[in-house]
């Protein structure tokens, strides 16, 4: 159940990010200067933490999405869903931990 809850929450967070992302990227059509000045306002630790959260949400959502596909289309999927969930958790840690260390050290040292 908690994998499902986390999947939903990460999905909503990614949707909200995409909304802002489409708006700020569209700014480049309005004026490249305006785009650049908006990009500069993003260079602070608060947005840095937000980016970390975004990568966490995308990583979990992608890996758990593969698990859901396996549950739907692989005949042995439902039987192995718990092992696949732990595989998702391990894959998440492997992908996210190095990113978080590197990203946060850059965010807080510059």
């Amino acid at each position, binding site marked *: *159940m908690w994998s*499902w809850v986390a999947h939903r929450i990460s999905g909503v967070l990614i949707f909200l990010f995409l909304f802002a992302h489409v708006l700020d990227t569209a700014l480049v059509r309005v004026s490249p200067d305006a785009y650049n000045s908006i990009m500069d306002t993003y260079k602070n630790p608060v947005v840095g933490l937000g980016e970390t959260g975004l990568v966490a949400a995308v990583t979990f959502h992608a890996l758990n999405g593969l698990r859901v596909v396996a*549950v*739907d*289309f692989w*005949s042995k*999927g*439902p*039987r192995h*869903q718990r092992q696949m969930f732990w595989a998702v958790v391990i894959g998440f840690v492997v992908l996210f931990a190095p990113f978080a260390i590197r990203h946060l050290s850059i965010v807080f040292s510059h």
Partner: protein
Amino acid sequence: MTATVEENTEAKPGAVPTFEVTLRIERYNPEVDDAPHFEDYRVTVHGTDRVLDALHQIKWDQDGSLSFRRSCAHGVCGSDAMRINGKNRLACKTLVKDVNPGKPITVEPIKGLPVEKDLIVDMEPFFQAYRDVMPFLVTTGNEPTRERLQSQEDRERFDDTTKCILCAACTTSCPVFWNDGQYFGPQAIVGAHRFIFDSRDDGAAQRLEILNDKEGVWRCRTTFNCTDACPRGIQVTKAIQEVKRALLTNKF
């Protein structure tokens, strides 16, 4: 005197130790209460006692107004599904010592169905969904003069879903059902699965048509709560996925 008696019972080989436990039961009397509330009961139970035995003790010795369903009391009739410490279980199959008796044990009615009194809920929406999937043998053509024979492998195909006792533990553990009472629910799909994959049955196309509904199998979000809740160990989500795949591939 009392001490000697106690010594005797303790010394007796094979004697079952007793302990005190608190049950926090959700009570609701529609004639008096505006909303359900919790009440605590302290009982002394044996290590071999089930939650149902503790409920009996409360009803028989402390508060006769406590209402709950139970019939066979041995995990076969499916009457006493309830939410014990936040999980749907049969009170007659759950030992008190297994549900963390150090803390108060919460006992609530199963969720998603209207509460009638205390732990009794209105099962009608649940049974209606079961009726809707036609849980009976549908055949075409002439009646055979002898039994309808079936190979061992064909019988194995739906063996898991024949174990259902209609206790509603699965359907009322489903977050989709909590939010959308129109959803057929895991149990109805298990009931349909039992006939869809039965080689003697000819009604599979009809049942699949019924479950191909907006409120049918596609509502399932593979949360696996139903599989975890089933007191009979049925792989409920697996059965639902098999019905979904039967709809996609038309193979059943």
